Structure formats: structure tokens, C-alpha cells
């Protein structure tokens, strides 16, 4: 079966690792009580990682627009193809919405983002104490939505490996699995 292009595979896994790491760091850092150097360090790392996801998601979207992914096999029911497209669309949307909501949350809190402590990113809105809790809640719930969709995405991929054995997931793997075992 035709695999995804190499840039699509690389971007998929880089973003996947970053999203899981940034999400986990977000939960850990907001759980630290009070004010500690570790907490501030984690906040900075979290923001840098989020900005990196936003940048990679932009590259990925551009690549997706110019290189079509391989078509699904005819054996796959049409509703599954439509469900997969819808889920992928929502994941693309959240790859942008989650970091952007976090970025504006930080700006509303009066803390601009300085990428890797080196590059000051644009301050697009002023500090806004009224907007801050709204964006904080938005960032949180978009993340919970993303977590739910990622779980669904992983379950669907595993279904293709374990139940359907149709090679759908192998198209995105960075390595080739033994054909006899999985197809």
C-alpha cells in the first residue's frame, strides 16, 4: 500500500511527540503550588514547545495542501473514510487553536513570549485582566478536546492494525513492519 510522503511522516511524528510532551508539561507545571524557579522554567519551556508546534503545524498544513495523502483502499467502508477525514480536520484545527489560545493567554497575562529566551515574539494584544481567565479556560478546554481526539485517533489506528489488519496505519509509520504479521 502507498505510504505517506516522507515530509508528512516526519512532521506527523515530530508534532505527535511535541504535543504529548507539551500537554504533559502543562499539567505538571500548573500543578506546582506557589512560585518556584522550576515552575517558571517549565512555563517557558511549555511556551517554546507550543510555538514550535504552531510552526511545524504551519509547515504541515502547507505540505498537506500541495501533497495529497494516499487514498484509502476500496475495501474500507465509506463512512470510515468520512469519519477519518472529519477527525483529521479537527486535529489540524486544534494543532493551531491550542497553541494560539495559549499564546494569547500569555499575552493577556502580560507575559510576552520570548522564543528560547532569544527571540521576542510579537505582542499582539495588551495585558488584559478580564480576558486572561477567559483565554485560560479556552486554552484548557481546547486541550481537553485535543486529548480526547488524539485518544480517538490512536484507537482508530490500533483498530486498523489489530482488528482490520488493512495496512492503513503502516502508511504513517516511520519504519516498515513485517508484512506477514500485519497485513
Amino acid at each position, binding site marked *: 500500500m502507498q505510504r505517506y510522503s516522507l515530509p508528512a511522516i516526519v512532521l506527523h511524528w515530530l508534532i505527535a511527540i511535541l504535543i504529548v510532551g507539551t500537554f504533559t508539561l502543562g499539567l505538571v507545571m500548573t500543578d506546582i503550588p506557589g512560585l518556584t*524557579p522550576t515552575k*517558571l522554567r517549565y512555563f*517557558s519551556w511549555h511556551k517554546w514547545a507550543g510555538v514550535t508546534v504552531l510552526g511545524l503545524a504551519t509547515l504541515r498544513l502547507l505540505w498537506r495542501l500541495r501533497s495529497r495523502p494516499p487514498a484509502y483502499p476500496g475495501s474500507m467502508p465509506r463512512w470510515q473514510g468520512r469519519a477519518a477525514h472529519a477527525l483529521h480536520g479537527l486535529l489540524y484545527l486544534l494543532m493551531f487553536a491550542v497553541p494560539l489560545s495559549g499564546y494569547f493567554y500569555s499575552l493577556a497575562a502580560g507575559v510576552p513570549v520570548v522564543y528560547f529566551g532569544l527571540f521576542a515574539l510579537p505582542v499582539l494584544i495588551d495585558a488584559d485582566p478580564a480576558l486572561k481567565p477567559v483565554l485560560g479556560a479556552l486554552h484548557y478546554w481546547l486541550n481537553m478536546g485535543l486529548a480526547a481526539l488524539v485518544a480517538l485517533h490512536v484507537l482508530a489506528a490500533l483498530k486498523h492494525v489489530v482488528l482490520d489488519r488493512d495496512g492503513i496505519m503502516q502508511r504513517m509509520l516511520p519504519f516498515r513492519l513485517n508484512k506477514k504479521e500485519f497485513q
Partner: protein
Amino acid sequence: MKPVRALLLASLFASALAGAAVLKTDPAKSSVAAVFKQMNVPVEAKFTTFSASIDYDAARPEASRATVDIATASMDLGDAEYNREIAKKEWFNTAQFPKASFVSTSIKPAGPGKLNVAGKLTIKGKSADVNFPLTVKTEGGKTLFEGQLPIHRLAFNIGEGEWKDTSMVADEVVIKFRVSAGK
């Protein structure tokens, strides 16, 4: 002449000699803030409670005097939890040192609309001689004093223990202020 009246007259005479009457500051149009870098991210925190007493006569600037008292517990980082943290012993220790103060020792004219101010700055029980340029302008019938005073936070023990790490919070802090005052 009764002693009380004599004292009153003497003090009136003395204040007439001392120069102009103390100007009335307008808190709504005045502000004091600390600007510092946290992992290279510029953060500005306002002190919401302070009082400034400025005795200024444009005709005799060298006779001017200024004192500023700042309630250290009023520093606002835009987050209630962080505000409680910086009141603690490692930072401002507001229980023991509720006030930071500046008292001028000399004010000299330095060109049109400019003054050079020297004085004693006391924060967290530590005093230091400082001097800084001050601009003076008239705005809507009021006199506006503006200036920036760079200090080193560690010289005043602001941030003890693990917070001495200047890669986390820079040693340099700029105190930015503007005081609007009139008769």
C-alpha cells in the same frame, strides 16, 4: 506671646523659607512599576499603593524635595497566587518591611525640563544612595515628573535562596515612575 502661637508662627516662617508648598499628587495619574526580566521575558509589575510628596518650585528647583513611600505588598504581578508569594520572606518580606521608600538628598537642574535627583532608596531594610535623571513637564495645569531608576534587586535581598539565580530572574530591575502633581 503664648508659646504655642510663637511655635506656630516660627514654623510658618520656616516653611515659607523652605520654598513652595508641597504639591498635591494625583494618584489616578501617577504610577510606580518595576520592570524586570524573567528568563529574558520583560515583565512589568505595578505597585498599586504608594504616596509621593513633592515639594517643587520651578523657579527654585534646587530647593525641591521629594519623598516616595511604596507599599511593598501592593506589587501586582497580575496573579493573586504570585502576589501572595512575593510578599513572603524570600522576596519583599512585607510583614517585616511593609514599606519601601525614597528620600531625596539633592535635586539639581540639568537643562530645560530636566533634574538630577540624588537620594536614599530603602527596600527591605537596606538603604543605598541612588541618583537618576527626572523629567518635568506641565500637562493640563499639573506638573508631571517622570523617571526611571535602575537598581540591582540582589543588593536589597529581593529574591533569596534559590531565587538568587539571575538566569531565572535578572538582577537588574528598573523602577519606572510618573507622578502627576499640582497645587
